[in-house]
């Protein structure tokens, strides 16, 4: 499948929203609205007031961009920002240096290519995320994106669910290997078939990060796919009515599910669902088919499973071979591959991408990947459908723009939130810590020797950097005005999901990289054949790591 094409109705929704916001900004600039009155309105359009300027968060629905959309993002960053954007763990993009008066023009420019900032903030249903390899990986049961699009439409300006107790995030996965961290979401959906072959979803509810991390329990093993929206509506209605509103830190659905118990919560959802007029909510088969059809079909060529050009270059060029080994994954079609572009060049800001880089990637997508780019929750980009024959050309171009770091899922592929460099909520900086660790482990042989190791860094307890599900999680805390960092081990956002456990007392910033080094050395000296860092930790427990890190304390 290609990319969902907006019809006139989809386009009109964006135009109407942009026009409404233009009028609201005019009322604010003229003084008719105070900042207090304007705040909820701008937040509904993804416009935050941060430490230094306004930040605009643009939605990238289920992480899929066309070349034209990515070029528009590049253009916006050049015209209205400082020439770069920041891809987030929700597969959105943020511009950190926006002027209020420009915001309506930006939204107009975005709307022209089907992009928007709708529901990228506020206590509503946020952008749905999915597997960045959707439609490209042979692992998946079926393409999850039509369901993501159905959720996008249903949740857009949903009148009943715009003022929820707290924000609400949904992820959809369709592979055994979970690249969405489904259980760490308010709702995680996993596409599956039952014994009769009927397509459906496993429904997980009540996962989340923040100050109280939970993995969402399954409340339904198999929901027939055609009832997805009515079932979501039932969950949302139970949450809207019963979720806590007295304490912002206890308002997420995870707290409700934990306090009622998954069984009782599930029972209430089933009761609500049973009483609901499902036919009014669920999409008819014709509409599901229309959505699927609007993605179009990709005209893959029939190719041999190997490529001489690819093999020759691999044999001749160690750097290319390393890139192929780490960043290139098998495709469902013979002769094609999935190419990961890590926005994690050691020393750079995780997730940042310059306008020139965006343009270059858009051109690569148009020329080599059926005009399709994906954003991952690890703040990387993906060219999902590249011919093996074209890999050398793609690699060369990525090298030219400084984005050929061969470190996917390795120690320097670090997730980090914007932290105290930008964010008004942060207690500590996240970016410099990520940069420092990545530079320490920049030597690619060593990084490969260490193997898969996911470091995730959050600048505050809100956990936008997903530190709870890092193999090594790092949380910035404020101790009497100084930045300290709490280290946790053993988390995972994948199909073997787990919450990381705190290792010991927080460390001052200069000690963090040293501590990571010690953790890695401990792992390397005790690992068994084929073990990742996470596997070794799970086998031997925290004690050896703790002893090593805190050996010279006191």
């Amino acid at each position, binding site marked *: 499948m290609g990319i969902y094409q907006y019809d006139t109705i989809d386009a009109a929704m964006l135009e109407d929203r942009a026009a409404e916001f233009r009028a609201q900004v005019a009322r604010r600039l003229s003084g008719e609205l105070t900042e207090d009155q304007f705040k909820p309105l701008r937040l509904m359009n993804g416009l935050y007031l941060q430490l230094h300027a306004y930040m605009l968060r643009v939605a990238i629905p289920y992480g899929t961009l066309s070349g034209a959309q990515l070029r528009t993002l590049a253009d916006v960053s050049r015209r209205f920002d400082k020439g770069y954007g920041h891809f987030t763990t929700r597969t959105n993009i943020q511009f950190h240096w926006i002027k209020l008066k420009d915001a309506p023009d930006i939204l107009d420019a975005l709307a022209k290519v089907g992009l928007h900032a709708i529901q990228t903030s506020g206590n509503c249903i946020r952008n749905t995320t999915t597997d960045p390899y959707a439609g490209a990986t042979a692992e998946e049961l079926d393409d999850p994106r039509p369901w993501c699009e159905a959720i996008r*439409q249903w949740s857009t300006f949903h009148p009943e669910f715009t003022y929820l107790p707290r924000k609400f995030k949904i992820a959809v996965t369709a592979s055994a290997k979970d690249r969405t961290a489904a259980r760490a979401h308010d709702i995680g959906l996993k596409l599956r078939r039952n014994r009769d072959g009927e397509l459906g979803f496993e429904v997980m509810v009540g996962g989340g990060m923040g100050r109280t991390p939970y993995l969402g329990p399954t409340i339904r093993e198999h929901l027939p796919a055609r009832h997805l929206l009515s079932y979501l509506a039932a969950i949302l209605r139970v949450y*809207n009515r019963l979720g806590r509103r007295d304490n912002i830190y206890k308002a997420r659905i995870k707290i409700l599910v934990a306090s009622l118990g998954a069984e009782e919560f599930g029972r209430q959802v089933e009761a609500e669902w049973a009483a609901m007029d499902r036919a009014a909510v669920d999409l*008819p088969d014709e509409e599901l088919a229309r959505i699927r059809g609007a993605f179009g079909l990709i005209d893959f060529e029939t190719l041999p499973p190997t490529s001489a050009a690819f093999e020759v270059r691999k044999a001749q060029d160690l750097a290319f071979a390393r890139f192929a080994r780490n960043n290139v994954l098998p495709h469902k079609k013979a002769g094609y591959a999935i190419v990961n572009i890590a926005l994690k060049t050691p020393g750079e800001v995780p997730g940042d991408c310059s306008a020139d880089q965006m343009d270059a990637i858009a051109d690569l997508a148009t020329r080599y990947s059926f005009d399709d780019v994906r954003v991952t929750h690890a703040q990387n980009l993906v060219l999902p459908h590249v011919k093996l024959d074209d890999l050398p050309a793609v690699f060369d171009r990525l090298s030219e723009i400084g984005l050929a770091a061969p470190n996917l899922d390795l120690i320097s592929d670090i997730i980090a939130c914007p932290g105290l460099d930008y964010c008004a909520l942060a207690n500590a900086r996240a970016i410099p810590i990520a940069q420092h660790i990545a530079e320490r482990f920049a030597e690619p042989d060593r990084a490969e020797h260490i193997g898969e190791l996911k470091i995730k860094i959050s600048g505050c307890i809100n956990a936008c950097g997903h530190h709870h599900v890092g193999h090594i999680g790092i949380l910035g805390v404020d101790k009497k005005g100084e930045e300290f960092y709490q280290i946790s081990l053993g988390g995972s956002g994948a199909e073997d999901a787990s919450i990381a456990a705190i290792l010991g007392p927080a460390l001052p910033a200069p000690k963090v990289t040293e501590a990571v080094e010690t953790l890695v050395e401990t792992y390397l000296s005790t690992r068994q054949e084929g073990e990742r860092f996470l596997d070794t930790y799970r086998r031997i427990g925290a004690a050896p790591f703790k002893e090593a890190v805190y050996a010279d304390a006191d």
Partner: protein
Amino acid sequence: MPTLIRLQDGQFVEAENLFTSVTDEDPIPTDGGVILSLARFQTYGAALLDDGRPVGVRIEPAERVEDLAYDLPRLALVAPAFPKFRDGRAYSTAALLRERLGFRGEVRAVGDVLREQAYEMVRCGFTAFEAADGSTPEQWAKAARVFRHVYQAAADEREAAFVERLSPPLPPGLGFAEPEDKLRGGGGAAQRAVTEGARPGATKADAPSTAFGGPPPPLRRGG
């Protein structure tokens, strides 16, 4: 005093408020319509209704509107409360009143009611609004009409995009169904009397007719 704005026959109009909102500490006035809390209604409601008084019930966000189901045919109005505009529970209350409990009378938004919520309120089935921000019927009409299309079915009669897409294209200018030219109330004699009584004093907003009308079930074309 908040302005009372009412949505009738697809138009937003300013209306005279014929109901006294009574807190649990206030004495109940000796005549005219009253809006009581759920607890107070359960104690005094029957007697007031026996006297022929129009009675409405205020539903606080934490209260279950289902508890009112048996009394709904006798009520002139139900008033889901917004203690803060960000408290969205009243949207579910209104939606349940319309979609599940079949209430056809007035559903009135009370509390922190701002015109920015017009779209959500109308779609969830509210038909009267005690606007706390001094806004006008014209502003409500505009705010409720921000979007030419809607993606999901709700308690109003707007056609969801997926139904529109199934339908044959309409002639130009007929994007919305015309509202029926009759009273949309149906909550019993008391409701009818009060609503009709309010009409002569109301000023009609000069807004074009739309389908943001009241509670009758949506007309589903082609679905």
